[in-house]
């Protein structure tokens, strides 16, 4: 989604292309930026599990694109250590499900080093990780962003389109804190198109350099009846529901992409909730203890008196992601479940 300031020269890029540009620009700009991960720079290889780094080794070489053993603890630990020494690593997790292999490095080291040093050190690393169910089963389909949105010391970003992906990744690289950067597998580009329900997975991206700030939500669609907050694929489902309900029931949804889960842009969120009086939160992470709970809890504290209906959350069901497509579809938040929730709060 181009913002008002979008300059003249733009192209339509996929998220993968936009991320690739962001990485290349930051690596050109700053010698201290480097890449580290599995299968990211091998000649004739994949350029990362979803091809984001394809071609970058030609420009930046093997020293700044560090191919590692299958050792997630070493990847995360090395990123932490290098960041402490003033480098700005972009670490790569092939699937976010593997983050559980390096939770210690992320939760106990990356997030705590600043405090433990009395504020004398910082850990400017980015960890990219793809989320989302895509018929790969329980260990390759999670959306574990909520675990990290619970970690003081980390920042957590979820991107849903190429424009914000690029602008936020560049901001993440320049941020002096550890940033977990979550992308959805079905949104990378044309390959996921069909599974993502035929969405156009490109967005306009300016030719010129730009940043998009961490901690700022965007209103993707304005509406006065109910506020929908959603990320990743769920965002697009919400937009579809909004169109549908506007036409079919005259219900106008305001749809917000929070983009950053930690810290949360409650200013944008509450402005909307105060206007609509109704809040529905949608995410593909599982329901119980998901980040939607934090949004709802803060709303129930900070703008309770504005609420005209119960706060609804539509999320992945509280089960591991099953393989069979018919089951997987039943688990992730569907257009139908979102629509039901919105109709319920608007009834």
């Amino acid at each position: 989604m181009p913002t008002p300031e979008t300059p003249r020269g733009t192209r339509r890029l996929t998220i993968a292309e936009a991320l690739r540009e962001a990485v290349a620009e930051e690596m050109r700009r700053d010698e201290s930026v480097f890449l580290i991960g599995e299968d990211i720079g091998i000649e004739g290889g994949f350029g990362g599990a979803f091809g984001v780094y394809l071609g970058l080794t030609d420009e930046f070489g093997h020293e700044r694109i560090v191919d590692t053993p299958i050792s997630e603890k070493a990847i995360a630990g090395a990123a932490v250590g290098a960041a402490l020494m003033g480098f700005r690593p972009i670490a790569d997790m092939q699937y976010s499900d593997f983050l559980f292999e390096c939770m210690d490095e992320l939760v106990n080291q990356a997030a705590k080093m600043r405090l433990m040093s009395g504020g004398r050190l910082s850990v400017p690393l980015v960890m990219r990780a793809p989320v989302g169910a895509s018929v790969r089963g329980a260990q390759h389909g999670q959306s574990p962003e909520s675990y990290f949105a619970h970690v003081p010391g980390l920042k957590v970003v979820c991107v849903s389109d190429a424009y914000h992906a690029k602008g936020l990744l560049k901001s993440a690289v320049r941020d002096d804190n550890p940033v977990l950067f979550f992308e959805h597998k079905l949104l990378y580009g044309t390959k996921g198109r069909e599974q993502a329900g035929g969405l156009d997975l490109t967005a306009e991206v300016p030719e010129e350099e730009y940043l998009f700030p961490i901690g700022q939500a965007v209103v993707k669609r304005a509406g006065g009846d109910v506020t929908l907050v959603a990320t990743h694929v769920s965002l697009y489902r919400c937009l579809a529901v909004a169109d549908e309900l506007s036409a079919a029931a005259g219900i106008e949804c305001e749809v917000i992409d929070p983009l950053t889960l930690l810290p949360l842009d409650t200013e944008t969120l509450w402005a909307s909730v105060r206007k609509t009086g109704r809040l529905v939160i949608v995410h593909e992470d599982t329901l119980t203890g998901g980040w939607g709970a934090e949004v709802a809890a803060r709303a129930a504290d900070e703008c309770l008196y504005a609420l005209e209906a119960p706060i609804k959350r539509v999320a992945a069901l509280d089960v591991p992601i099953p393989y069979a497509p018919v089951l997987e579809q039943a688990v992730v938040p569907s257009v139908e479940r979102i629509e039901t929730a919105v109709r319920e709060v608007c009834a």
Partner: protein
Amino acid sequence: MRPERPQPTVLLELYRTMLLIRRFEERVYFLFLEGEIPGTLHQCQGQEAVATGVCDALEAGDWITSTHRPHGHALAKGVSPRAAMAELYGKETGCCRGRGGSMHLGDPDVGMLPAIAIVGGGNTVVTGLGLAFKLGRTGQVAACFFGEGATNEGAFHEGLNFAAVQQLPVVFVCENNLYGASTPWERVSLVPSVAARAGAYGVTAQVVDGMDVVAVRRAASTAVAAARAGQGPTLLECATYRFVGHSRSDARGYRSRVEEDEWRLRDPIVGLRHQLLEEGAADEAAFDAVGGEVDAVLDDAVEFARSSPDPDPAELLADAYA
């Protein structure tokens, strides 16, 4: 002393299992391209001798753990082709009732955990199987399959060391196919062999020709016997090669066609066939019969999978908790 050669009937049975795996994988790839099988695939063409040789050395009551590349292990351990195929189709009749899928094939009835698709994940879990067998004095053995790439995970280290100090009845079977996804082993290890790592734990290791099912079976039998006798774990490194890409969308640009061709000359199925022919232990007619049988089994499996019902989403929430 030349080790004893298995009986021809045994060899033909090994041949049959390897062929079943190979043709299963070929069918599955085709069905995947046709859009009948969803998701993604990690296939094992070329590595059949390892799964087959190891599982043949195990008893029915023994268990295995497997990886993201589990089809061969499953068939070799006795998961029915019907149940395996139906699982890939995501059907209720699959061995995991469609909940697991390609990367989590398994079947408790034949002693196979749902495969663990976290690289190295099985290497710690298998120690619990060994501990259970030791505490229960059941005489069972657990075998853990994993790739050479997995040996760089912390899990490999912790699992092998714990199994060693507890002298657990576990056989660690490394399928060294030279690559972890696109990454050649020599880029992620300064030691040339995985077996060289066993000494760090006081564990016996053996490098085996993983393209020779008889050699694998022999080495596995020794390791299984030692485990069953309470002598603790062994690490078997089976030198092998996957003839296909890492996963279904892999153009294999990171390795040479020359290398691939050299390894294809060592095809474990072709090799065993030649041996059996040379030794006069089987003739073309016998191979044709086996091939026919295997095809019939797979026709049946595909038909079964296709005609099986989808799982019922209404039952799903019941699966998270016992």
